[in-house]
């Protein structure tokens, strides 16, 4: 089959690799019909994520048709499914609590050591995201082996377009969880740092959860325009002083809840020196500790901080004093995708959530290397690129 393989910094290629087969009884194989490039894929592309090996197949946002099932899969051939980016077993202590991204059972034991040392505990395995997270081949390919297929993939009703439901795999639940973690109360003003896909879904989710006002902060005009479409007020931090603007807009009280969605919803387990490289690079536009610092300083006393943005190592100058003195609450973590999928599928079917607005480009899987370059170089215009193995020419 053809698959997008990593070969080094800014070097991804369409390789011919072996088709995947059923290995474990709960596996299924899906034929990919749509797969997206995620902001966190850019961290791999830019060579910041350790434990990558040449030939690793990327992609953790994907959906497709079930073509093979293991003896214990509950899926049927021909079903269309969206696959969560986190690999979770459904039967351990954490899955029992719906903390799917804490499931240790998809991560091969030998790959658990790094996170054990770095975080004190092993984390969930992910598709297409380095060997620290399991070394699983990803979904930017014609076929994917999906473990625990009786738990993860959600079946999509016939007649519903891929583009409507694809983002159930990651960024929609991630934005929704971010808003949920902000514990929004009616009448609240919620400030969102970062209008990438996660931030934009957090904006929509916050309104659905009863926020009276949402204030979106970014520096890409196109992205702020999208936030505005959903009713958010905007702050372009290149044009206006964010803290001063927030204080004036909220009558000096500050936002009731703040969401840090900067960091392009990276899922990586970065080590400390890698974080420093990322901070030093220019593509993030704003350094990540800066957004969480600013969010904490701006948040009202007794308010809530939600942090979907990924931090992998250690952060300097974390405003712990402000955090304590103002009595803030922080909720964060990788997304428990499986927990949110059914309700969010319903919300999409009932047209409560718009997903397709995000897609700026659709192209054949074979053009994936071009897609990566475009996604990296044109962040204002390229809001989301969806790759289609079945497509022959770029639309």
């Amino acid at each position, binding site marked *: 089959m053809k698959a997008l393989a990593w070969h080094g910094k800014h070097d991804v290629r369409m390789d011919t*690799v*072996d088709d*995947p*087969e*059923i*290995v*474990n*009884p*709960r596996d299924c194989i899906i034929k990919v019909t749509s797969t997206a490039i995620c902001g966190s894929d850019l961290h791999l592309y830019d060579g910041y994520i350790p434990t990558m090996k040449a030939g690793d197949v990327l992609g953790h946002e994907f959906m497709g048709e079930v073509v093979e099932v293991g003896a*214990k899969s509950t899926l049927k051939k021909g079903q269309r499914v969206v696959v969560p980016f986190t*690999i979770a*077993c459904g*039967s*351990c*202590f954490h899955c*029992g609590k719906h903390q799917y991204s804490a499931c*240790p*059972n*998809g*991560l*091969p*034991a*030998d790959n*658990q*050591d790094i996170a*054990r040392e770095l975080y004190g505990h*092993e984390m969930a*395995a992910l598709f297409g995201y380095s060997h620290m997270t*399991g*070394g*699983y*081949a990803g979904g930017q390919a014609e076929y994917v*082996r999906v*473990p*625990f297929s009786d738990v993860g993939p959600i079946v999509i009703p016939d007649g519903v377009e891929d583009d409507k439901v694809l983002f159930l795999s990651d960024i929609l639940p991630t934005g929704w969880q971010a808003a949920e973690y902000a514990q929004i109360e009616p009448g609240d003003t919620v400030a969102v740092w970062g209008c990438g896909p996660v931030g934009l879904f957090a904006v929509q989710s916050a309104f659905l959860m009863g926020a009276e006002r949402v204030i979106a902060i970014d520096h890409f005009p196109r992205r702020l325009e999208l936030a505005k479409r959903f009713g958010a007020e905007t702050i372009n931090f290149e044009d206006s002083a964010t803290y001063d603007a927030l204080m004036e807009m909220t009558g000096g009280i500050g936002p009731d809840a703040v969401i840090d969605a900067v960091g392009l919803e990276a899922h990586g387990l970065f080590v400390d020196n890698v974080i420093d490289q990322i901070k030093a690079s220019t593509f993030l536009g704003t350094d990540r500790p800066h957004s969480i610092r600013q969010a904490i300083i701006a948040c009202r006393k007794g308010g809530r901080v939600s942090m979907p943005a990924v931090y992998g190592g250690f952060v300097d100058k974390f405003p712990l004093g402000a955090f304590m003195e103002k009595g803030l609450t922080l909720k964060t973590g990788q997304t428990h995708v499986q927990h949110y999928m059914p309700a969010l599928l319903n919300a999409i079917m009932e047209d409560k959530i718009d997903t397709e607005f995000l897609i700026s480009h659709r192209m054949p899987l074979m053009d994936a290397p071009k897609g990566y370059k475009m996604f990296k170089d044109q962040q204002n215009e390229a809001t989301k690129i969806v790759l289609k193995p079945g497509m022959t020419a770029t639309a």
Partner: protein
Amino acid sequence: MTYPRDDAPPTTSKHGDATEAATESLIDPKGSSAVAQAVTINRSIAEVYAYFRDFSNLPSFMENVISIEVKDDRLSHWTVKAPAGAKVAWDARITQEEPDRLIAWTSEPGADVPNSGRIEFRDVGARGTVVTATIAYDPPGGIIGKVIAKMFQREPSIQARRDLARFKQLMETGEIATPAMNPKQFEEMGL
């Protein structure tokens, strides 16, 4: 000063008396170093104990165990991978057995790596079963052997942690996690 002054497990002692404290309750303890690891498995104690007690099951999740030949109810012969492609072997004898609670063993004289230890099983209600493995061993070549073993990631503490993680996966999910793309690759990669 007499230790311990707390309730922490003896293998976590900072005072160099770990092995003695960890093995004092063992019958016929062997080994100058001791490690312990614990894991919580979301299955009933009866199920977890029964699977473990059938030693012929152990190579299915213990990476370095090449084979276990069960000779009788008490005695088994173990062949285990050692660093740099070497193999070590010993006969293990069960010294204590309390169903759904404890299995303790010691190696018979002539073992390549004299060892002893115990596996404890504890019912933790809705969370399932806590399995704690305490292993005392004489590292081949003493301290240098231990350093070499660590380099090859065969250090017993890490190995025990990985093996317990695989045991948990097998009991909870019925499978052992692997990124392999096909059964042949799975076999080549090993556990």
